[in-house]
């Protein structure tokens, strides 16, 4: 199999034909249903896709038509992607939990001809908006339940479309199917993925076969993935990550994708499969860890002591062993004993016994959590990607793992940092453009192929890795020109369990200040253990000992900022602890629990002034909304602490230069 031959295989349907020949009896996809795993080999997958694809053609689907795919990760929905692509049609996966109105926008914008959906819930949703979707002629469903009495002319079952295809190919029409596949080229649009769009309407990112296949191939090379991998597909199909991990990389490498029984059974299903390659956003790792710690609290004293002994040992040596550094023999011996008694069973619980590579991405992960998994011997790494890049921009190579970087540029990816701190990239995975929105495409894509990510970052002078600090539009500068990335500082603070929220101020000011919110659960239990008496949140927040504790945290953050080149100048000079918990009901947080920095700065203007005026204390009265809608006032005196600044680590600090 020379490289020249594989390069001719430039679309997913062609890859399917190759896999069905070369890996005919290897598992391609599994689904757990009725408590049992069902497996389809590559040749069986071809036998499923082929009639469905011909059936779609019989229903009138043609080249460049859009086929919407709505539902959770199910084999038939993945097959639909390839079936549509075989006809030259373009699959458009849609987030299945979007409300009807959002869905209507996407389907209308894409002009979907056919929608292939999971179940009655989605069919009902589509029927409720059908007058807005004149181009949608058929709805095809996977699960039959509750759909027997629907209008069969418009709403069809997956199996009935396959029947249609089988009947048609019996009449020799099937010959054309392979010809249709051969007509596909690498430069064709393979898929349109709508970005969930935190601001404004979602945009349809068009990716070609070339960009997805080359990106996937490079990613497979980067992590040495083979046809033997097992992955579990549980993240939304409309998200680029799942599209690349569970579809593109699987077709390119020929590995097996496992579809869980239901979204609630993922942990259990992962355990049964034993995935070798995994991806999850940080909160999933956080939840697993919290669950473990909570369960351990309920375990017997002996087990608990054993657990903590070995976990502490792993904290000390585990990462070094994973990174193949030199470790004394006795530490290795204890570690291998721990592997048998604690780490192994724990990994088995997580379904990570056989894991080779696990990624976390999307947002910053707490260094403690990150190290915990690595210390158990799980090769957890970070990557940075975007829909516009077919995922991969940077990733951490094996052996070069840091909790706070996102790694080095992937194979064939170029990355640079603009003067305003924004990260730009150029790669074979770059998207063609936003569907029907050339002006928006022009905003992010330069003439010579660079794409603006909208994220600000810098290359860490010590490791050469990229660090993402914030959204570019939120990044400001201090009066002396130092880069000020509020979210980066806030995240560092929020990794301390005692700090629930942090708001960093400093744009166009002389120095950085922060307002903190204590975490009532963590600080409350600390107070209980240390006999600190308090009557209210306000009293606890103002307690001198709490201030002491948080001063230590802020100092640690300053120390770590001092180590980080361009960020050294953005150390925290003054901070205060708010006397009230930030709350979405008061408009201080968004409904997704993100701080609304601008609003808070206005609402707490006296505090903000105090932070910069040098005052030691500020009196403040704030209107609050109670849960039942009544309004009231919280009045209080808030103390402000001054902090020591640490000297910057090296002279590269002021430059913030790119590789």
């Amino acid at each position, binding site marked *: 199999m020379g490289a020249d031959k594989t390069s001719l295989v430039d679309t997913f349907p062609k890859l399917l034909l190759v896999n069905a020949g070369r890996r005919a009896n290897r598992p391609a996809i599994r689904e757990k249903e009725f*408590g049992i795993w069902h497996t389809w080999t590559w040749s069986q997958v071809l036998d499923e896709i082929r009639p469905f694809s011909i059936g779609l053609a019989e229903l009138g689907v043609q080249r460049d038509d859009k086929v919407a795919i709505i539902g959770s990760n199910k084999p038939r929905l993945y097959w639909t992607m390839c079936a549509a692509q075989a006809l030259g049609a373009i699959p458009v996966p849609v987030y299945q939990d979007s409300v009807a109105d959002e869905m209507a926008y996407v389907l209308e914008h894409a002009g979907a001809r056919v929608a292939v959906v999971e179940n009655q819930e989605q069919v009902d949703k589509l029927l409720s908006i059908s007058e807005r979707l004149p181009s949608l002629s058929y709805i095809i469903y996977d699960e039959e339940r509750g759909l027997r009495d629907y209008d069969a002319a418009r709403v069809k079952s997956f199996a009935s479309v396959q029947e249609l295809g089988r009947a048609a190919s019996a009449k020799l029409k099937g010959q054309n199917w392979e010809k249709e596949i051969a007509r596909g080229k690498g430069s064709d649009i393979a898929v349109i993925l709508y970005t969930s769009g935190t601001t404004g309407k979602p945009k349809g990112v068009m990716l070609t076969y070339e960009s997805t296949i080359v990106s996937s191939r490079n990613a497979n090379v980067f992590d040495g993935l083979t046809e033997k991998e097992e992955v579990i597909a549980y993240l939304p199909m409309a998200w680029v990550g799942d599209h690349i991990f569970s579809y593109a990389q699987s077709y390119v490498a020929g590995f097996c994708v496992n579809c869980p029984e*239901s979204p609630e059974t993922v942990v259990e299903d992962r355990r049964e499969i034993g995935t070798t390659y995994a991806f999850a956003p940080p909160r999933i790792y956080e939840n697993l860890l919290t669950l473990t710690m909570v369960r351990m609290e309920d375990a017997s004293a002996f087990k608990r002591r054993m657990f903590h002994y070995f976990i502490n040992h792993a904290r000390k040596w585990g990462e070094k062993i994973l990174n193949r550094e030199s470790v004394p023999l006795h530490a290795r011996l204890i570690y291998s004993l721990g592997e048998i008694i604690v780490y192994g069973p724990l990994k088995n619980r997580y379904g990570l016994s056989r894991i080779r590579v696990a990624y976390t991405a999307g947002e910053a992960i707490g260094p403690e959590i990150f190290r915990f998994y690595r210390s158990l011997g799980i090769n957890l790494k970070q990557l940075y990607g975007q829909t516009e890049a077919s995922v991969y921009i940077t990733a951490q190579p094996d052996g070069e793992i840091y909790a706070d970087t996102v790694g080095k540029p992937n194979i064939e990816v170029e990355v640079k940092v603009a003067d305003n701190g924004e990260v730009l990239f150029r790669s074979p995975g770059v998207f063609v453009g936003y569907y029907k929105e050339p002006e928006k495409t022009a905003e992010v894509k330069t003439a010579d192929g660079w794409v603006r990510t909208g994220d600000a970052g810098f290359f860490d002078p010590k490791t050469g890795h990229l660090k993402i600090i914030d959204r570019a539009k939120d990044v400001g500068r201090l009066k002396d020109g130092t880069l000020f990335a509020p979210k980066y500082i806030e995240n560092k603070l929020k990794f301390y369990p005692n700090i629930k929220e942090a708001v960093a101020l400093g744009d166009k000011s002389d120095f950085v200040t922060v307002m903190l919110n204590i975490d009532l659960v963590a600080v409350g239990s600390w107070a209980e253990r240390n006999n600190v008496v308090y009557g209210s949140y306000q009293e606890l927040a103002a307690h001198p000992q709490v201030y002491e504790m948080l001063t230590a945290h802020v100092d640690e953050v300053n120390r770590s900022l001092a180590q980080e080149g361009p960020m050294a100048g953005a150390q925290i000079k003054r901070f205060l602890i708010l006397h009230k918990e930030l709350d979405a009901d008061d408009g201080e947080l968004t409904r997704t629990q993100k701080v609304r920095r601008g609003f808070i700065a206005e609402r707490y203007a006296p505090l903000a002034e105090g932070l910069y005026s040098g005052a030691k204390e500020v009196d403040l009265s704030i209107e609050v909304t109670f849960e039942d809608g009544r309004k009231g006032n919280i009045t209080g005196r808030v103390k402000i602490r001054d902090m020591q600044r640490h000297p910057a680590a090296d002279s590269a600090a002021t430059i913030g230069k790119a590789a």
Partner: protein
Amino acid sequence: MRAPSGANVAAGEVLLAAQNISLAFGGVKALTDVSFDIRKGEIRAIIGPNGAGKTSMLNVINGFYHPQKGTITYKGAPRDNMRPYRAAELGIARTFQNVALFRGMSTLDNVMAGRTLQMNKSFFWQCLRFGPAMQEEVEHRRRVEQIIDFLEIPHIRRVPVGRLPYGLQKRVELGRALAMEPELLLLDEPMAGMNLEEKEDMCRFIIDVNNQFGTTIALIEHDMGVVMDLSDRVVVLDYGRKIADATPNEVKQDKTVIDAYLGLPH
């Protein structure tokens, strides 16, 4: 949720008929001269204020109580001195007002318990990990898994039911009743103590059971909205007497029913 299909079941065949049922515990008259019927394929609601005799009526139907007077005709055959296990054999399953599950057993085992009646291989074979009993078990497990899938509870398959929230326990109980593949399903306050979302889920399951398996359902319920949406016909009891028997809309406008619910003196 759906338009009551009263018109087409009204002409349907009678599955169970109660004639002039009277039941007393000592001096307390729980039911007095109650007659009504349940037709094949319908959802029949039994409503009434507290203490009206609704649960007693269900207990009479599945043979737990024996009325002093009156007869129950099931599938055309009159019966007397019915025992609950005999009712179960004849295809009558029920759930209870207060959940009655095996709390220490998993969801799967609880639902499997609903199939005990259909398992008939001898103790000898059941001791072996091969042979006819094993095949039987596999077949029953397949059916049970379909029910688990149907009720969307695969994630709690292995969880002891005692650890489950109340709404899910109710669903497991429905699953156990369904495992019997009953012809007549008696539900005693299936939505009691549930929040709105759980109620909506339960309604959907009841409709799906009725639609997909063609199971006839008799249910007791306090939530009027639920009754009006779900049922084809409603029988109203008050102080052990039948005061109305009609479609939900008619019952809603019935003067005696309104009085009974508002607590007018008798």
